[in-house]
């Protein structure tokens, strides 16, 4: 096993991998940008080195700097986490050239799957069912032509994309050009690659994905599915395992296809094959993510396995310690992605200082967090703060448990999407698992219930507001009803960062 591993990431996933290293007796090396000196992954790691300014391109996306740290620190392997360089084949090759093990699939498999267009071609060849669309990057003109042929609505997607970035839904010809250009510029920013392609939109599909795991001795297994249909702007918001509509037979079929896809790509280590599932439960290949997924914990809870431990063991050359028939699903797990964003205001990011953090715990509650009370969330990166996961014997109990956990969760100082989850989990369609990728947008467009309900709680709120004001001076600034100073402080902090941002982009 490796003696030292560098984690080329930040936030909760960096902490997640550092914890796995600690548990396996592996020394962990963190890297951090200027705005992340006080970040949790820096203090949790055994070693930590600065790699430059806040802008990801100059730090977390900077291959040369990261490899330099790996060499200097004597790390034998690099774990890329998700996002950033995790699906960058060039980085994987650079690691290999530097004699450092990249913890993930071979660069060739990443390149194949990393380009959605090449992946489509390969999967089509392998007989995997596909959604109609273009198998390669397009110009605006070509896109308009193809869209006319297969008919609206269509999706525009970044070939190098993922996580909804550089992705746009187009309902009619008029929308196409601006959407196409926004997608291109977003793709360029996010992935340094503005190639985009086009696909027919499957109406009311579910997003269901299969976790695969392959060692470097030709063994590949699937670890069941994840239901990820609750999305906003193609960003997953809630994931669960298993899916309510997947039975043993469908699981075997999808799993078989996923393993087939992985093997045909010479895939190793952890990966995910994403499918769109239509209302008749037909599934279409969407893409393969050649990395650990954000939502991997729900699979860990229902299988009892630890995917990061397994990633490290596979990368170290070990054989898979179990066979397909040993994999058994038990119970039900749900994950909520907690973001620093304001659900009551278009989900705009809400960076700033976390003045209060009260975390849920107790039976069946797991939290993978990247933040702590007193930390200031920078606005330079993805605003995900934490992942809250609930496990219980069945789906209804898991939902009830998640609601309990959300009741215990409190984040003060910044806006978060915690209130959104309550709305979702209370929704009868979610309870009945009547969900598709449009579920959340429909829910959001509906009128939210007025919060000042007639249950007398508003009386309590009124009294409490007065009590907070009355006790404010005796307490620290955050607790009193004295928004002006707090607000000013935050704003000026933001101003500094915003200026830095401005300078950076001049």
């Amino acid at each position: 096993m490796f003696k030292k591993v560098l984690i080329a990431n930040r936030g909760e996933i960096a902490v997640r991998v550092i914890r796995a290293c600690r548990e396996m007796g592996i020394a962990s090396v963190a890297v951090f940008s200027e705005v992340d000196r006080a970040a949790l992954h820096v203090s949790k790691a055994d070693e930590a080195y600065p790699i430059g300014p806040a802008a990801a391109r100059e730090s977390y996306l900077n291959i040369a700097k990261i490899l330099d740290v790996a060499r200097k620190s004597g790390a034998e392997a690099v774990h890329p986490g998700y996002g950033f360089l995790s699906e960058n084949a060039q980085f994987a090759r650079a690691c290999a050239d530097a004699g450092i093990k990249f913890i993930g699939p071979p660069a060739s498999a990443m390149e194949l799957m990393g380009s959605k267009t090449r992946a489509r071609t390969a999967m089509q060849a392998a007989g995997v069912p596909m959604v109609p669309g273009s198998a390669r990057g397009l110009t605006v003109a070509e896109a308009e032509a193809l869209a006319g042929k297969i008919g609206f609505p269509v999706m525009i997607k970044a070939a190098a994309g993922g996580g909804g970035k550089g992705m746009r839904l187009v309902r009619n010809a008029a929308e196409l050009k601006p959407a196409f250009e926004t997608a291109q510029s977003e793709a360029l920013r996010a992935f340094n690659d503005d190639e985009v392609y086009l696909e027919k939109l499957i109406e009311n599909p579910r997003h269901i994905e299969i976790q695969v795991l392959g060692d470097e001795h030709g063994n590949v297994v699937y670890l069941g599915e994840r239901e990820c249909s609750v999305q906003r702007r193609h960003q997953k918001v809630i994931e669960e395992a298993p899916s309510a509509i997947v039975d043993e037979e469908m699981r075997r079929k999808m799993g078989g296809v996923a393993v087939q896809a992985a093997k045909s790509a010479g895939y190793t280590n952890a990966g995910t094959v994403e499918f769109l599932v239509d209302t008749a439960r037909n599934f279409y290949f969407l893409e393969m993510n050649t990395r650990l997924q954000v939502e991997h914990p729900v699979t860990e809870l229902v299988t009892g396995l630890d995917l990061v431990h397994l990633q490290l063991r596979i990368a170290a050359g070990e054989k898979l310690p179990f066979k397909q028939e040993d994999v058994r699903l038990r119970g039900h797990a749900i994950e909520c992605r907690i973001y620093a964003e304001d659900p009551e205001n278009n989900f705009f990011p809400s960076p700033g200082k976390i003045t209060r953090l009260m975390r849920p715990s107790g039976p069946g509650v797991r939290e993978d967090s990247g933040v702590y009370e007193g930390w200031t969330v920078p606005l330079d990166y993805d605003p995900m703060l934490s992942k809250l996961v609930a496990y219980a014997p069945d789906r209804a109990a898991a939902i009830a448990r998640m609601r309990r956990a959300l009741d215990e969760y409190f984040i003060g100082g910044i806006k978060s999407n915690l209130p959104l989850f309550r709305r979702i989990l209370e929704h009868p369609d979610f309870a009945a698992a009547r969900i598709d990728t449009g579920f959340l947008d429909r829910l959001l467009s509906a009128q939210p219930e007025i919060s000042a309900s007639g249950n007398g709680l508003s009386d309590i709120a009124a009294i409490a507001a007065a009590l907070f004001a009355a006790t404010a001076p005796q307490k620290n600034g955050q607790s009193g009803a004295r928004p002006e100073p707090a607000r000013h402080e935050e704003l000026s902090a933001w101003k500094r960062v915003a200026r830095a941002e401005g300078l950076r982009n001049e």
Partner: protein
Amino acid sequence: MIYEVTIAGKSYRVELQRSARGWQCKLDGRELPVDVTAAQSGVLSLLLNGRSYEVKQEIAGTDTNIVVGNERFAVSLRDPRSFRSRRSAGGGDQGVKKINAPMPGKIVRLLAAEGSAVQAGQSVIVIEAMKMQNELKAPKTGVVKKIIVAEGAAVDAGQTLAEVE
């Protein structure tokens, strides 16, 4: 101490008095036997007629919320020492409506020029923060009266970016 608290348009008059036995509390003139304990800073435990309420105070940006159990109330409070009113950033009642930056970020693109006609809900400005682009839409159908920022500019939360008339 006397406070005027407004929640969802309804206003409450709260009278507080510190006594040996804790807080004496009147809501709109009626005495309430509330038992208050400050568990942690920013958190109160209230007992009223046997019911237990864990109450938290949320101050984020320009808003103050009071969270009772799992219900969230936007409050504005007038007290002897401070006054604050809560009005949405996009406010203003005349024919002119402002487009304000809802968070600090960077202006990526301007989709409409000064003087051009826009439909309510039409995208006017693209702003980026935390690597997500968001389109700011016209608050009303009319004409873009002013564009106050340039592409590439860094803006603060609440800063006015454009006006539609």
